[in-house]
């Protein structure tokens, strides 16, 4: 119907099941509406830690973007941040480059010219290429090797292929593999662990650090906390990896294959009982008790305080935030709140949460952020009083909002506690 945003209730989606997801929720069947969520989902370099920023996670690295001008255009948003000043460079392509591939011959020379112009030699040069080279079938590994020979520095490819967004290895998966591909085998240390998945650190008082310490771990590495290239290299000493974001799974498999470092995957959750169970499961694998009753009690207490302060809050939850909107919705519903609307990208994996949600809150509406009729989304009748996420804020500009998309990553009981505190503030 014209002028109405399409949605399904949780109950309807659950009834249809993961094999019968409506077309409106399948992004390959329709045009993609430009909402803030789409920018993050569909445009791999645009928002937050997209490919461009993520590619510079290694300390003192620089990036050369080899692409048509349009692909590098929005980088100025990032390069204006102090930590990225003088770290982005561009080799722009024209039509003749596409036809002849001559731009590839220029890459080693360009890398050399850039390195010569810098006061301090970079630790790594990342070469970022885009859809055009994906279609041309460019062998960027070879170009990188040539550049390494010319400069004597490590040079790695970074694929910002929006075309492969829904493929087996989307750009954000690939960039994580590139980042860790520079690690060389080192002698293992039994008390070192890597946290993989995010490009910024977990919140400092996340209980996971303390629990790992109690378990005998002396050093926890995160790429975002590495001060220099040498420290980054010590990630190869880890005894095991904890994968906190599914997009880091392939990188963790590379660790396993190349460096013989095994991994355990954990999820970011907001359901306190599930967080406890996940830690218990990790403890079982490690063969030690893995628990923090104090942090758990603090999280429970923060939920209680939120419930008592805002008993009638009605939430709308978007996907532009640090969490899975369906899981967070389920958590809030379990805590006794009402969740009226979810804006998300529905995948088969979300049905784990939809099943429970359909029992507890069957009438919660689910909107697809990318569907064209979202142009007509009308917040009037929703009854929403608080929104979580940048996209939810976009749809409800006049309602109290917690963006919850900060760079420091919320996790575990601490994540729940901070979220409740932020919700109490609005």
């Amino acid at each position: 119907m014209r002028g109405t945003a399409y949605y399904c209730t949780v109950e309807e989606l659950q009834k249809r099941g993961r094999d019968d997801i409506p077309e409106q929720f399948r992004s390959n069947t329709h045009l993609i509406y430009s909402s803030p969520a789409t920018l993050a989902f569909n445009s791999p370099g645009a928002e937050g830690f997209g490919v461009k920023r993520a590619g510079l996670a290694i300390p003192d690295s620089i990036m050369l973007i080899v692409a048509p001008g349009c692909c590098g255009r929005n980088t100025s948003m990032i390069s204006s941040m102090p930590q990225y000043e003088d770290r982005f460079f561009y080799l722009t392509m024209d039509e003749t480059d596409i036809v002849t591939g001559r731009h590839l011959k220029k890459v080693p020379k360009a890398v050399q010219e850039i390195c010569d112009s810098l006061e301090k030699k970079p630790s790594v040069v990342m070469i970022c290429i885009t859809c055009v080279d994906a279609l041309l079938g460019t062998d960027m590994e070879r170009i990188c090797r040539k550049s390494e020979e010319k400069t004597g520095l490590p040079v790695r490819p970074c694929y910002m292929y929006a075309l492969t967004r829904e493929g087996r290895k989307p750009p954000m998966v690939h960039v994580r593999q590139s980042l860790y591909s520079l690690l060389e085998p080192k002698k293992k240390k039994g008390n070192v662990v890597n946290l993989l998945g995010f490009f910024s650190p977990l919140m400092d008082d996340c209980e996971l650090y303390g629990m790992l310490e109690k378990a005998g771990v002396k050093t926890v590495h995160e790429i975002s906390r590495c001060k220099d290239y040498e420290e980054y290299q010590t990630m190869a000493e880890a005894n095991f990896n904890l994968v906190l974001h599914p997009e880091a799974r392939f990188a963790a498999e590379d660790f396993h294959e190349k460096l013989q470092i095994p991994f355990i995957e954990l999820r970011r959750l907001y359901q306190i009982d599930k967080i406890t169970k996940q830690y218990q499961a990790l403890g079982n694998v490690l063969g030690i008790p893995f628990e923090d009753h104090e942090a758990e009690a603090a999280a429970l207490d923060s939920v209680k305080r939120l419930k008592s302060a805002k008993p009638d809050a009605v939430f709308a939850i978007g996907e532009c935030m640090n969490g899975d909107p369906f899981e967070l919705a389920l958590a809030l519903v379990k805590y006794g709140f009402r969740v009226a609307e979810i804006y998300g990208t529905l995948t088969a994996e979300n049905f784990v949460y939809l099943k429970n949600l359909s029992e507890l809150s069957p009438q919660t509406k689910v909107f697809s952020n990318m569907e064209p009729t979202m142009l007509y989304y009308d917040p009037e009748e929703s009854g929403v009083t608080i929104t979580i996420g940048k996209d939810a804020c976009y749809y409800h500009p006049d309602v109290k909002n917690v963006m919850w998309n900060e760079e420091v990553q919320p996790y575990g009981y601490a994540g729940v506690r901070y979220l409740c505190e932020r919700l109490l503030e609005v």
Partner: protein
Amino acid sequence: MKGLRKYLTPFAPDQSGAVSVLYELGGMLVICDAGGCTGNVCGFDEPRWFETRSAVFSAGLRDMDAILGRDDRLVAKLADAAEKLDVTFAAVIGTPVPAVIGTDYRALERMLSKKTDLSVLTVNTDGMELYDKGEEKAYLALFEKFSDKNEESEDMNDKDRPHIGIIGMTPQDVSDLKAANKIRKVYADQGMRAICYGMGDGLDEVRNASLAAKNVVVSPAALKAAQYLQKKFGTPYEIAYPLASELVPEVNYQGKKILIVQQQVIANAVRKEIEKRTGEKEAITTATWFMRKEEILTDLNVDAADDISLKEEDDFISLVEKEGYDVIFADPCMERMIPGFEGTFIPLTHFAVSGKLNV
């Protein structure tokens, strides 16, 4: 090295220029890309996107769409959206992906026209040209598609024609979202009504383009469209930027060697404004990273040697080193390229360069 940039991020590309022209006209704008280009347009190059929701869509191309050339899928998606949305036309805007696979935009336009009742226009941008090229194509496509001779205009004298048409007003070109209202006021103060195509004035005004007494070209990208309208309707045009005075601060310019870097019309309007203030012909050079039209120089009576093209970063750096200017007007992001410059640097923001607006 040609194409290598160490200081400046790439300038606004042609697809952003095309979107900029069509953005406010009530159509469904489909960027024929995988998502990255739309992200660039909406998240960066189109400042109006942050203010209002708009019907800008990505075609959402995936690798197999490109490899197999599945234009029929795009047609089906667009036809489906056309049924659900209340829009007046559909525009398909090109990007590097269709350029690489050789998409036939004319064929696409015909296929789309058969599947939907909407008027369809296509702009064959490729992401490798600059914004002004995309604007030029979009303006031409727009006026060719929608502007017809209005019967009312047949017997009108120039005096009776109701308005002045302003062509070339986009945020990319004028770097100021309030510029259209300011220009309307300038003409209103002279008892005339100004229509700013694409900035505050919609498709109906484009349809009535033949009613304009004259057109004012405020950017080189609009020149071809103005010439087209002159040929089609006999509408005369002039080249000017009516807000140039607000871009020139009160500084003593007398006897100074001056460089102005902007799009060609604004750069030369600033030149005229300075010379108006000093009352003399000054040693002024205008330069642009973008299109440069001989007709504009002829029309404004500027010597071609005083108006130059910049392509690479080194062109600007060496020009400044060689010429020893006293005053430089340029986008603030260019100041860091010339740390040794000891003269007066006057900010002259150009959105297509820095992505920043005048505030």
